């Protein structure tokens, strides 16, 4: 009886928070994000079922780049421009969790001080809690919560990334990759990874030596890419792009704000392009397809051990494996078990 009561109490609490969020209560928004951070998919499930019809309205900008490239400062500048237009802006800033202690030092807010008390702005710092890929496990859910809360714009700032952290692409409508001068040569620019998910390249710290060289390298990389025609043979394409959008390269100084209004124009033109070309819809379809697979994997994984271990048949299978005969290797046995599963689920 006790656990049952507890779970209905927890559900009542979530319901209450959602109601408060609908009335614009910022503390309820914050608490809901804490709930998805701590509670994982079991809690996210309850919240998303409730708020999902209220989402899908925010424009989501992703900002990624190496540590110290100016992500937080640029995030603040971009947010300021949209706040000036009277829009409601949400920021999710992700920083890394220590693999040693499990602790984290989240310092992105420091760069956003100038807007702290603007009631149209909601900033949330998140530790990635060991998740690779540049975002935290609960970032997607936090985006949905800020979306339902009524944010016109949500800026997601990733942890400082290297070359292959491309999760942001699965969440943002428009992705900015910051490439400051003085880091690597033109070979870095033609490598795979984050250069491929870019909608707009930002060469930040334009006042430093090498900024123009950086721009040239990126433009050259884009030129090379445009002239290559090869068949896409990978059916599990991880990136949805349009050949019609050549990522523009823009220099900025996030500290002084130089060129930020021009950057906003580029963001807005990509937003328009995505809408009219159908790119946005394609990306969303891709994303939610993967989101569903991730959710199924999570719940399936949880179930599967229990299902297999609690079934006495598993011992027969293990005996077969231990016989070392043809067709009794662990892969063949797993295939047989998978077959049994699919019959159970889909017949």
């Amino acid at each position, binding site marked *: 009886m006790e656990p049952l009561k507890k779970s209905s109490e927890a559900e009542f609490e979530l319901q209450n928070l959602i109601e408060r969020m609908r009335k614009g209560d910022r503390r309820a928004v914050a608490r809901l994000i*804490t709930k998805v951070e701590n509670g994982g998919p079991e809690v996210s499930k309850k919240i998303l079922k409730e708020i999902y019809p209220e989402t899908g309205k925010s424009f989501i900008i992703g900002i990624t780049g190496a540590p110290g490239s100016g992500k937080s400062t640029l995030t603040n500048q971009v947010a300021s421009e949209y706040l000036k237009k009277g829009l409601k802006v949400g920021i999710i800033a992700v920083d890394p969790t*220590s693999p040693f202690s499990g602790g984290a030092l*989240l310092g992105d*807010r420091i760069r956003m001080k100038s807007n*702290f008390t603007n009631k149209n702005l909601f900033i949330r*710092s998140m530790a990635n809690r060991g998740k690779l890929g540049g975002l935290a496990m609960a970032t997607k859910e936090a985006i949905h919560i800020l979306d339902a809360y009524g944010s016109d714009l949500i800026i997601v700032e990733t942890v400082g990334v290297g070359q292959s952290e491309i999760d942001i692409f699965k969440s943002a409508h428009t992705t900015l990759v910051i490439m400051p001068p003085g880091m690597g040569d033109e070979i870095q620019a033609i490598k795979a990874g984050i250069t491929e998910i870019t909608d707009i390249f930002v060469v930040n710290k334009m006042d430093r030596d090498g900024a123009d060289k950086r721009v040239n390298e990126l433009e050259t990389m884009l030129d090379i890419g445009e002239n290559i025609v090869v068949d896409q043979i990978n059916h599990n394409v991880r990136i949805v792009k349009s050949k019609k959008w050549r990522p523009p390269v823009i220099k900025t100084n996030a500290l002084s704000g130089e060129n930020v209004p021009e950057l906003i124009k580029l963001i807005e033109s990509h937003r328009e392009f995505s809408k009219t070309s159908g790119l946005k819809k394609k990306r969303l379809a891709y994303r939610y397809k993967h989101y569903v697979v991730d959710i199924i994997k999570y719940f399936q994984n949880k179930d599967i051990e229990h299902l297999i271990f609690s079934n006495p048949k598993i011992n027969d299978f293990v005996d077969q494996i231990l016989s070392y005969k043809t067709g009794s290797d662990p892969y063949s046995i797993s295939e047989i078990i998978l077959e049994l599963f699919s019959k159970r689920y889909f017949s």
Partner: protein
Amino acid sequence: MGKNIRCIVAKPGLDGHDRGAKVISRGLRDAGLEIIYTGLHQTPDDIVESVVQEDPDVLLLSILSGAHTVLFPEIMKKFKEEGIDDVLVLGGGIIPDEDIVKMKEVGISEIFGPGTKIQEIVDYIKGHLKR
């Protein structure tokens, strides 16, 4: 997954000495806590707004300027206005003994002065969380 203790470390007022706040932040990080460091020169409004948005379990205020007698009560007053009653608030820095009672009266749970061991703060936090 599971609960991580979230803390905000804030420097209210005009005092620019943040070595202590950084040491505390680093120490708590190493103890496995999540620290949101908000930087120097925070007004009570800034701090309360950060608490509203970040939903921390703990707020740690570091001050060395002597203005705690004004700023701490102001922050706690704004907490009341916002209805925030489940955040543990701690103070640190240079706070004379005779002020400690007054600070506790306005709702600061404990004051940690110079020489405090980080582990002492960690233990206190873990023993006094309000939710």
